[in-house]
């Protein structure tokens, strides 16, 4: 295994094109017989600052939906790992492979005046269905740097709208200007090798073709970390990213 720690500490506002150019004319599908797997865990070194308590008094519906109060979702840890980290192959796939774009939508739900999920990944061209499950008004304001910015209202419970992103971009912040605590982040990539860390801070990238890749882990407050991984045929590599709690920003 060849894993080299590369860098870290990018700001959460940084948005960048995920490097994955359009497939070449002779691009091929990934050979499942030789494909491998990159999995791992995201950890934190140090003590993270507490998530701020959200003040929802400006909207009685939100207040009622969260009778026990709510804290910001920036730092979610479980079983020693950090959740809501977007991990993806940033570089190394080149133009060698072609990937079918999924037609099934990914859902971003506004429920209880928070976004579910808080961080998600989609493919370029894949539909993202944005739903209002609250009895209050939300506006959906995407603030990409590469893709087209948009802002529209969803004043009624049950409203759905579908958007697609045409360019790779990690990450696109989404916010609701009505409820200033509502933030979500969408990572848009042109290949299927991405994941958002869940319980225990784990991630799993499957069916990865042999090659040498730059893997990036992105967190909204802690910035980014990258590692280089070389994967042989049928290899299974374990990668651990460790963010420094001292890199926390925006608190």
């Amino acid at each position, binding site marked *: 295994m060849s894993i080299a720690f590369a860098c870290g500490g990018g700001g959460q506002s940084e948005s960048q094109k995920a490097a994955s150019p359009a497939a070449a004319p002779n691009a091929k599908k990934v050979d499942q017989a030789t494909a491998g797997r990159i999995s791992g865990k995201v950890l934190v070194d140090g003590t993270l600052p507490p998530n701020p308590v959200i003040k929802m008094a*400006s*909207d*009685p*519906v*939100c207040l009622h939906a969260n009778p026990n109060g709510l804290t910001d979702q920036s730092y979610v840890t479980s079983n020693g790992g950090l959740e809501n980290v977007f991990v993806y192959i940033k570089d190394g796939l080149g133009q060698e492979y072609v990937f079918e774009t999924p037609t099934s939508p990914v859902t971003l739900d506004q429920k209880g005046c928070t976004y579910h999920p808080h961080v998600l990944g989609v493919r370029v061209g894949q539909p993202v269905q944005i739903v209002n499950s609250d009895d*209050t*008004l939300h*506006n959906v*304001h995407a603030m990409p740097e590469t893709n087209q*910015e948009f*802002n*529209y*209202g969803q*004043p009624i419970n049950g409203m759905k709208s579908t958007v697609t992103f045409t360019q790779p971009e990690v990450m696109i912040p989404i916010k*609701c*200007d*009505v*409820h*200033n605590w509502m933030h979500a982040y969408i990572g848009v990539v042109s290949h299927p090798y991405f994941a958002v860390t869940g319980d225990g801070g784990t991630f799993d990238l499957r069916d990865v073709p042999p090659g040498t890749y730059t893997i990036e882990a992105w967190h909204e407050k802690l910035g980014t970390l990258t590692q280089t991984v070389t994967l042989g045929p049928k290899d299974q590599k374990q990668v651990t990213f460790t963010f420094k709690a001292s890199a926390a920003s925006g608190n």
Partner: protein
Amino acid sequence: MSWLHRYAKLLVVVTVLLITAGGMVTSTDSGLSVPDWPNTYGWFMFSFPFSKWVGGIFYEHSHRLIASSVGFLTIGLAVWTALVESRRWVRNLAWLALGAVILQGVLGGLTVLFLLPPPISIGHAGLAQIFFCLTITVALVTSPGWRRAGARVDDPTLRRIAVFTTAAIYVQILLGATMRHTGAGLAIPTFPLAFGHLLPPVWTPKIAIHFAHRAGAVVVTGAILATAGHVWAHQRDRRELLRPALLLVLFLITQVTLGAFVVLSRKQPDINTAHVVNGALVFGTSLVLTLRSFRVKFAGATALSAPVGIVPDALGAHS
């Protein structure tokens, strides 16, 4: 006092309220909380249910309603002035105010539809102050004190300093608007020093904008003190000049204090807005002083020949 003058003063007051509401929209980052325009989430804006004025919508929608009220009041001002005012240039001023408020409404709508592009948002903020000045000017020139014929101070030095001061304040307001709408409000997060230095040790566009606003504050402070000092030294007995000069100093002290607290409070919305509104009051007060220094140039006035300090009784009560 004419009813037209009273009406114009009412418009000035409501415009201050409008600037306050606009300041709260930006300070609470609510500019896009109502994504459509001129409708509000599909409702006709005047029928948007009050129960739905939640979160950022409260600030944005109330700003739109107050703006509409100002628009209607300005139509009234223009029509009323056209009907009763004998001076053509005053009638033209009122029509100009109407044109400005219409353009202001369009800019406000465009900045929402185009997702707050800084040039449009800064233009919206800058035109707001021009409109405010127009309403102040109409209110001033329709006042009994302005209209009364008689001898006035003819002080070229005061006119020069006052014009410079008013212009400097406006430039400073534009710098402030640029800072607000480009997210540079905390580009230098320390006060009074910049990162512990007199000059920032590093420069980025945002730091440059922020620092320009601080440097502008120094220039404006000097200009206001020069204006007020001149009035105190040479026109102390002219109440119509002394009062705005003293008020200007009071607003200046308030403004610098608020500016410091904007940084120290990390842009707390009500402090931020108070800084914007007080800035408009500084500008408006300087404009009144400037216009009064030019009163001798208008019809019905003669240059005061008596020594400074000997004021005919009839001149003492400018509004």
